């Protein structure tokens, strides 16, 4: 479609305006993190100032960032991998060997996801205490895998549904058993979808704050716990808070930026098209 110059300029301004507006809070957070505490609460807010690393240094002194970050990585990756490991066969059986109850099961699984996690906190807490899983990475990995399982299964299910049944049947005629059918045919065919499902799960795990706060204290605590320790109401230090937030968000944000193309590709491939 041919557009006039004014239209093009308008669209450019609008597009960039919206993008900057949405990004502004993040930008401001990063900016504030380089201010001194006094500069952070100056009115009117400073746009130009001499940046300092002091907040980052203080944050690192107060809490060992790397340990929290490492926990976050291990738990998010572990939880997502475990969820995929459960979901790949589960979605397979739902998509290709459906029973009359499949649809109901799937929606029921999704509806459990709508349950506030706090509703099952007490039983889970007691269960974890008795199994010795409190404040362990493994415990959180299990919780996260289960937490994301419904969505992961559902997304995989929609991706699987896009695969023509005849291709799998051809595989069966070629001598493929269930396992090789999934491994050689289904997974390669739905790889973009599986990847974006994994990415989404990873993001959700990384950002999860409820279980991590309640089931871990120190040894297995991820970055959400790290942040919580800076947000106590007494003694708010904006610059430190911003610095802590920045380092907590940065890994997943950069990861998200790098993988957004993959994420989009997978989503286009399945659920949306």
């Amino acid at each position, binding site marked *: 479609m041919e557009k006039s110059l004014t239209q093009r300029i308008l669209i450019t301004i609008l597009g960039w305006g919206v993008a900057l507006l949405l990004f502004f809070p993040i930008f401001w957070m990063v900016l504030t993190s380089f201010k001194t505490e006094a500069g952070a609460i100056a009115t009117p807010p400073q746009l130009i100032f001499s940046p300092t690393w002091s907040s980052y240094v203080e944050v690192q002194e107060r809490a060992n960032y790397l340990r929290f970050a490492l926990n976050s990585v291990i738990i998010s990756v572990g939880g997502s991998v475990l969820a995929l490991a459960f979901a790949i066969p589960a979605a397979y059986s739902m998509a290709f060997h459906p029973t009359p109850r499949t649809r109901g099961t799937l929606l029921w699984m999704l509806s459990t996801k709508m349950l506030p996690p706090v509703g099952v906190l007490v039983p889970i807490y007691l269960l974890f205490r008795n199994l010795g899983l409190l404040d362990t990475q493994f415990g959180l990995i299990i919780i996260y895998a289960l937490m994301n399982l419904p969505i992961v299964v559902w997304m995989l299910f929609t991706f699987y549904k896009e695969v023509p049944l005849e*291709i799998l049947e051809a595989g*069966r005629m070629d001598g493929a058993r269930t396992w090789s059918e999934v491994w050689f045919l289904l997974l390669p065919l739905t790889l973009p979808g599986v990847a974006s499902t994994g990415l989404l799960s990873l993001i959700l795990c990384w950002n999860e704050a409820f279980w991590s706060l309640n089931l871990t204290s120190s040894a297995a605590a991820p970055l959400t716990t790290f942040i919580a320790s800076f947000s106590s109401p007494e003694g708010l230090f904006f610059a430190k808070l911003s610095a802590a937030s920045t380092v907590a968000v940065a890994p997943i944000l950069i990861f998200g930026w790098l993988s957004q193309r993959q994420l989009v590709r997978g989503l286009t491939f399945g659920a949306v098209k």
Partner: protein
Amino acid sequence: MATVTLRGLRKSYGPVEAIKGIDLDVADREFVVFVGPSGCGKSTLLRMIAGLEQITSGDLLIEGARVNDVGPADRGLAMVFQSYALYPHMTVRQNMGFALRLARVPKAERDRKVEAAAAVLQLQPYLERTPKELSGGQRQRVAIGRAIVRQPKVFLFDEPLSNLDAALRGQMRIELARLHEELQATMIYVTHDQVEAMTMADKIVVLQAGRVEQVGSPLELYHSPANLFVAGFIGSPRMNMLQSEVAGADATGVAIDVGPGARIVVPVQQGQVRQGDRVTLGIRPESLAAYDEGQLAGTVRLVERLGGMTLLHVGTEADLPLIVQTDGADVTSAHAPIRLAVDAAACHVFSADGLALPHLATHRLVARPEA
């Protein structure tokens, strides 16, 4: 010896019975075609043989062994699908070698077999391409190649040509027939296209609503259809069907009035048919000819000139539509009055229950197996 035997095969989806008890013997190296209108159960039957559908009851035997509970992977069959079902993420070579790879055949042997199959199908230049880089006909050949590589006991084809254009379909028909001769393999082929059935089959199985209507060689079905359904399904253009009344019946045949004062005697066994019974008279378009002293009078409504032959659409005096097949040089024009002669010996008579009255003599091209 790759024989397939079906004994009382049934398939139900809940309360709905899709396949209603089928008995069939497929001999070694035979080319059997299942034909029927869509929804007749022909694909379901093929998929039951393949193992892709559960068998509700009855027995399926391959080489004499019951395989009802054997999975599709272990039946030793290969199937070519309507959509080709090529693996889109694999090259042609990988597609064709996939079954061997699963069977843990060493790579060298695998390549040798794939290349041999590719040679048969003229696919060598395309071995490293992926399916989406191929034309429809080439994909079709890869699908067939994938089946050949496995050296299966029986080849199964599920409407493999229906996605091709007319010219390519004709060419692939010939290629499949050649392949059958070359491989000396047992093949079961499903189609809704009676031309494919007629041209390729050793034996045609006509199916309707989950039942076998008739089994026989193409010409047997053409010249001695067992009932109205087969008569209408086999043959193009369709057989003309006239509702009639029996004027008389004796040992020489059944007499029918096709018009005022126009009586023909069709040489069929009279059986239970008596004078005055309602019957259906079946006349193939080529059994009618324009002839000034013909028994039937009518008007030409439409002329279809196909070049080598001409089809006349005629309305009789009783306003029944008839199709007449004449040669390409026919000069009859539309709206002209016409008289038609009926070749009584080639006509068919169907009793009120739709069953054909057997002809007194068999057609010379039909070798009737002794019943």
